[in-house]
């Protein structure tokens, strides 16, 4: 045999301990200690959602507030699940910066395809958190109007939405809202998914379609290191952002616990897409601090020690440290935000408990635009059947005192 078996690097070991802190390629603008750092390619240059520059500290205070409120949505919902008010809840603890950074980089005309965990992005898009709760409570499959917020419904089948996002972006191309040079018009799409999802055929096909048509879509992957109990190493043996290279578009790994960096990188990727330069893969390197969902028990498969280490990289703490250390926010600002969070918590608790159950008859609604006679007959038959019981308590929406079904 010739020497030629060693024609490639042995990549099995590439994904090793060096990756624990994200590796050298990690884009970071704010350290875990709350210190601003420079990056040769990305700068934090905040704008409002129409692209007008805003003052840095004001913007960072806004991001802080977003993250605190998002975390409150999360902890409150977790508590509501514990109290039997929600059937399940998918926690985002630890991923606030990734989501707020990505969410605040959007323009109104952009469109977002979330997974089931993008509560922070939903927040940025103006979706009432109660609309998220209704899904996890089992009241509906998603309560908001996607086109009112340019924020699609949560998608539970892993990876399916990556293709929807790509198709939607192809639609934008056909609508002539890509690469026109008109900032108020040019639009792009963000597809959210997780590290586990990167293994699904659909996600990889989305890369292919997006590359083939040069579609204006940002693939925003929150690598929170876990797909339920499976570590990222099961899905990829090299840093995940490099997946994009195989499909011919750029991939970037950003510190997903750094809201400034995530904002900057996502914004650049979106801008690139809007300008007609095609797709980008953004790997937001972060950590799922909580369980997969409220029904999961992560102590079965991961070490406390890991979680503890990631606590030191908390996305909110570092922004607070920055704001405090630089006198960019006063105590009263922090108190006000804390207060707001309490109010939000209260609203969620009350709103959730007061949420009426749907009418059983709702299951017959919107199956079709044009209801077939056979389904109409089932609807009528069931209504008549319900009539044979005490109809007042079943057919009409009722307020319940808990989700203890």
């Amino acid at each position, binding site marked *: 045999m010739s020497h030629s078996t060693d024609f490639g690097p042995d990549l099995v070991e590439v994904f090793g301990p060096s990756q624990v802190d994200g590796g050298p390629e990690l884009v970071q603008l704010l350290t875990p200690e709350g210190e601003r750092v420079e990056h040769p390619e990305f700068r934090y240059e905040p704008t409002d959602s129409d692209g007008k520059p805003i003052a840095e500290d004001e913007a960072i205070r806004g991001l802080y507030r977003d993250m605190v409120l998002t975390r409150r949505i999360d902890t409150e919902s977790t508590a509501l699940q514990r109290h039997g008010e929600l059937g399940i809840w998918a926690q985002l603890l630890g991923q606030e910066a990734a989501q707020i950074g990505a969410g605040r980089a959007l323009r109104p005309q952009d469109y977002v395809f979330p997974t089931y965990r993008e509560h922070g992005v939903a927040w940025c898009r103006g979706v009432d958190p109660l609309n998220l709760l209704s899904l996890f409570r089992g009241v509906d499959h998603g309560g908001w109007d996607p086109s009112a917020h340019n924020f699609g419904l949560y998608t539970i089948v892993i990876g399916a939405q990556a*293709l929807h996002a*790509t198709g939607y972006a192809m639609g934008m191309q056909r609508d002539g809202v890509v690469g026109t040079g008109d900032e108020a018009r040019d639009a792009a799409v963000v597809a959210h998914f997780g590290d586990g999802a990167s293994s699904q*055929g659909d996600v990889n*096909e989305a890369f292919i379609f997006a590359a083939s048509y040069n579609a204006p879509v940002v693939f925003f992957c929150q690598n929170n290191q876990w797909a339920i109990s499976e570590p990222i190493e099961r899905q990829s043996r090299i840093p995940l952002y490099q997946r994009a290279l195989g499909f011919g578009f750029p991939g970037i790994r950003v510190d997903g616990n750094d809201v400034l960096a995530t904002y900057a990188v996502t914004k650049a990727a979106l801008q690139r897409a809007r300008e007609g330069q095609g797709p980008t893969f953004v790997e937001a390197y972060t950590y799922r601090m909580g369980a997969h969902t409220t029904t999961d028990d992560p102590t079965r498969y991961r070490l406390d020690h890991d979680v503890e280490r990631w606590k030191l990289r908390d996305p909110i703490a570092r922004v607070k440290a920055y704001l405090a250390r630089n006198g960019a926010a006063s105590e009263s600002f922090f108190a006000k935000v804390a207060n707001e969070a309490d109010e939000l918590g209260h609203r969620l608790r009350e709103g959730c408990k007061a949420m009426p159950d749907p009418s059983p008859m709702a299951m017959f*609604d919107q199956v079709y635009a044009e209801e077939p006679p056979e389904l109409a007959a089932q609807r009528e038959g069931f209504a008549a059947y319900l009539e044979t019981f005490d109809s007042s308590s079943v057919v009409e929406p009722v307020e319940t005192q808990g989700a203890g079904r």
Partner: protein
Amino acid sequence: MSTQRITLAKGLNAGLRKAMEDDPKVLIMGEDVGKLGGVFRITDGLQKDFGEDRVIDSPLAESGIVGTAVGLALRGYRPVVEIQFDGFVYPAYDQIVCQVAKMRFRSKGRNPMPMVIRIPFGGGIGAVEHHSESPEAQFAHTPGLKVVACSNPVDGYWMIQQAIACDDPVIFLEPKRQYHADKADLDLDLAPDPLFASRVVRRGTDVTVLAYGPTVKTALRAAEAAAGEGRALEVIDLRTLSPLDMDPVFESVRRTGRAVVVHEAHVNLGLGSELSARVTEECFYSLEAPVLRVGGFDTPYPASRIEEEFLPDLDRVLDAVDRSLSF
């Protein structure tokens, strides 16, 4: 004169063209649908006339095609997806069953899913494996989808337009064996039947034969042969498989007292089982015999040299008619 003699392939092609002219939101997507005009040439000439943005040659990935079509539909387009052969729809099954079918429901009507998924289906063309399947039952079982099958050139022309105009997702089955077979007169002055309606295509009094897609022709030939033996078969072209349009069926069976269902799909859990169940529920006291089913056997589709033995043919239909009459 508005009458032309056309094949099914031509009818579909003309119908697609008309739909694209009528509505700029209509897009065609699929493998080889562009320059080649599809392996069956159903989209022949459309890319040339409507451009690459409206007639989209896709990467070789069915889930990708349907999944991006979902996105396009969410953006307000009306994608018409071509699946190259019946046997290749399965990689897209998840997108069809979990996304296309449920999007309207899940979104409380806010995200309609007007999409047509065209599938050349059925056997009899001497093809290799996976090119002769009949997957309709799997889609008909799925709420949120509508499923239709055309059987002739004139229906092909109208039904494809109606399916595209429909705000619900439609699985559109085309009997590939008929694409380039018999011609028929398309008279544009004659108003078409509604899309979701079955149609009595031959009147008779002795046995009701239910067929769709490729087996309509088989049923009609059987009726012809039976007539020679003094038996009057009534043949119904179901046309719509989900929802089923049962009223004409019930009406017929109440008269004949007997029904035979003919499809190429496997008998077990094929459309025939649902038709049998419903006919029995509704016409219990009219039935002189149980509904009999003639279909593909419950084996994988065999090698093409023996496919005609697998597929229901005139003799097997007549055999079932005999069994029904002598029950």
